[in-house]
């Protein structure tokens, strides 16, 4: 039995840890491959969203490379993602593939269901080793997201252009090739150490941008055309409100905690949307935009795949939040046809605008000492 799984941002690192620790045989589709995405697009319905097409491409690549078991998880709800599994199975079977499909719904995953689905893989393994593997994988999710958060902080302030990118590229390469928790752990620690030694300009004040939107696209650097890197190299600090760790926390850990407080961002969204759920992460997009547009960030970017239903609703309210709080919001809609050059132009224009706005604010404050203006670095 050979397992394959789809990519979503940097989640592959922890999935690898889990499968390695359990000693299972698996095949990982290549990270960020245009070829696999093209296959997915060719076999998907036209108006299906981009995550579907990418995930399907990964599956086809996996099955072509000897895998016979597909591992897929989703969080349920009003978004189309709940039906990815059904349609994908249908498409793959009609293409002639024979495979075993393991589907997890994380929002009401019971121990029994997990045991039933994973049972055949875990025969002969002690409970302790399974728990240890799960804990290690969980730790990796959070550690990886933390590392990426650190890289975003360093990148916009680095003195030698491209240092952070180089460290992160090396880390990603290592994460894709090495096996086992120990090695991944070592790669993580090394990358963190290297990042901390990058020479940075401490007086530099970057423009601060918060990234909100659909979780797959905002956390997947391949489909979002490396938005974090691009903005960082333009001298902007990016805070990504969506990440794999966020997802795991919201849909997995939170359900295990008996006392459940209402999410802060859902609370903040209420003036604009009088309901708790509009499917997907739409309500979090609204709430996070509201929470982060009270001066802590200079601008907000909403990013989502074309035809994403929850985010379209959220987008309607963002104009209102922008009017009310005076923080610029830009919406980027991505699909397989998005051209990179036009995308960069829009990002540059947005960062430029935020920088001018920031400078103006400093001038209005009438500071005698000319404050060091946030400078703009261009992508080489």
């Amino acid at each position, binding site marked *: 039995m050979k397992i394959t799984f789809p990519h979503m941002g940097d989640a592959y690192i922890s999935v690898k840890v889990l499968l390695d620790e359990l000693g299972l045989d698996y095949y990982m589709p290549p990270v960020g491959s245009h070829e696999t995405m093209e296959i997915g697009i060719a076999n998907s*319905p*036209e*108006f*299906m*969203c981009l995550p579907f097409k990418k995930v399907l491409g990964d599956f086809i690549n996996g099955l072509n490379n000897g895998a016979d078991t597909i591992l897929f998880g989703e969080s349920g709800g*009003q*978004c*189309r993602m*709940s*039906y990815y599994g*059904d*349609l994908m199975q*249908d*498409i793959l079977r*009609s293409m002639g593939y024979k495979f075993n499909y393991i589907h997890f719904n994380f929002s009401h995953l019971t121990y029994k269901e997990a045991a039933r689905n994973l049972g055949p893989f875990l025969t002969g393994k002690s409970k302790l080793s399974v728990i240890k593997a799960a804990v290690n994988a969980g730790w990796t999710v959070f550690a990886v997201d933390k590392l990426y958060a650190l890289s975003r902080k360093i990148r916009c302030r680095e003195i030698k252009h491209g240092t952070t990118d180089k460290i992160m590229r090396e880390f990603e390469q290592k994460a894709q090739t090495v096996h086992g928790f120990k090695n991944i752990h070592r790669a993580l620690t090394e990358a963190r150490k290297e990042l901390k030694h990058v020479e940075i300009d401490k007086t530099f004040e970057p423009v601060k941008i918060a990234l909100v939107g659909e979780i797959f696209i905002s956390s997947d650097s391949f489909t979002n055309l490396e938005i974090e890197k691009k903005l960082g190299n333009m001298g902007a600090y990016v805070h990504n409100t969506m990440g794999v760790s966020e997802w795991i926390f919201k849909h997995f850990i939170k359900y295990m905690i008996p006392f459940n407080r209402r999410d802060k961002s859902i609370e903040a969204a209420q003036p*604009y*949307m*009088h*309901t708790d*759920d*509009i*499917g*997907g992460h*739409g309500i979090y997009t609204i709430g996070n935009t509201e929470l982060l547009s009270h001066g802590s960030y200079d601008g907000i970017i909403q990013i989502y795949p*074309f*035809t*994403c*239903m*929850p985010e*379209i*609703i959220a*987008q*309607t*309210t963002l*104009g*209102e939040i922008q009017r009310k709080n005076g923080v610029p919001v830009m919406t980027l*809609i991505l699909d397989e046809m998005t051209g990179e050059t036009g995308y960069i132009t829009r990002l540059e224009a947005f960062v430029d605008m935020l920088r001018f706005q920031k400078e103006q604010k400093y001038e209005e404050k009438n500071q005698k000492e000319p404050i060091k203006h946030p400078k703009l670095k261009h992508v080489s």
Partner: protein
Amino acid sequence: MNQILKHAKPQKSNSDITVGLPSSMMFYAHGELWEDFFSKLGCHVEKSGPTSREILNRGVSLCSSEVCMPVKVFTGHVDALAKRTDYVFIPRYISMGRHEMDCPKFCGLPDMVRINLHNKVNLMEVDIDFDKGTEKTKASLGSISNTLGIDYETVKNIFVNSVQNKLDTDMKVGSVEPGIKNMPSIAVLGHPYMIYDEMLSMGLISKLKQKNFQVLTPNSLTRNVRRSHLPIFKNRNFYELGSDILGSASAFLELPQVKGMIYLSPFACGIDSLVTEFIERHLHNTEKNMPFMKITVDEHTGEAGFDTRLEAFLDMIED
């Protein structure tokens, strides 16, 4: 029931209140129920009438370009009513029954409309959420009771009698005569607010009738038939409209008089992207060679091109 009516009638001030019902979106499914509900509450009910070019253009100019055409049209309807009514009623459909849910856009519809009209409209809302019980829906009736100044229990009783108990029955407004005749038929599939809106559907149903076809829609079948023919998602949550269409598509497949199927879909509809794919795959797996045409329309669609495609499709069937 009579007692409730007696109780409601003395509130004379309510007859001065005009409640607007936008004749779009789920009005095509539950318009009569809501009309009944508000007239029993003693309000004057005003409908926005059929979609006109003006309403469409107004809606398009008010909404962001990303939302689907039906939402744009709906916003246009609300805008038309906002000037001549005291309140506009927009139900927030979350789930219409067990194992059913609605398009996310229905969940955010009242809020989207309010923001698109720059808060210049008085809205009345109610949450329709029956998947996990009726408590949430009933609690949301409180705002209606406050707005109209009618005691909560009365509103609740009228709601249960005139809306809740009838949601499951086939009360949907349809232009199709009941009873399926044995004559060449075309099945028209799609959301009710697409196929019954003369403007958005470009008169598809009447055009087919002119060509002497019997037109069958999901409303020609009873809810039981639609649900029992579902090829998938039988005991799982799926979009209510999606289940209707999927179920009726496979039921029509069994009717010998159905010569072809036309699926009318608004551009970039999320639910249709799933449903049409499932239908096409289902048709493909059956032995009957059923002609199937998917027409995608948006606010820029020209009628001439639409007619050409329709004629070509009908020619193919007649041959």
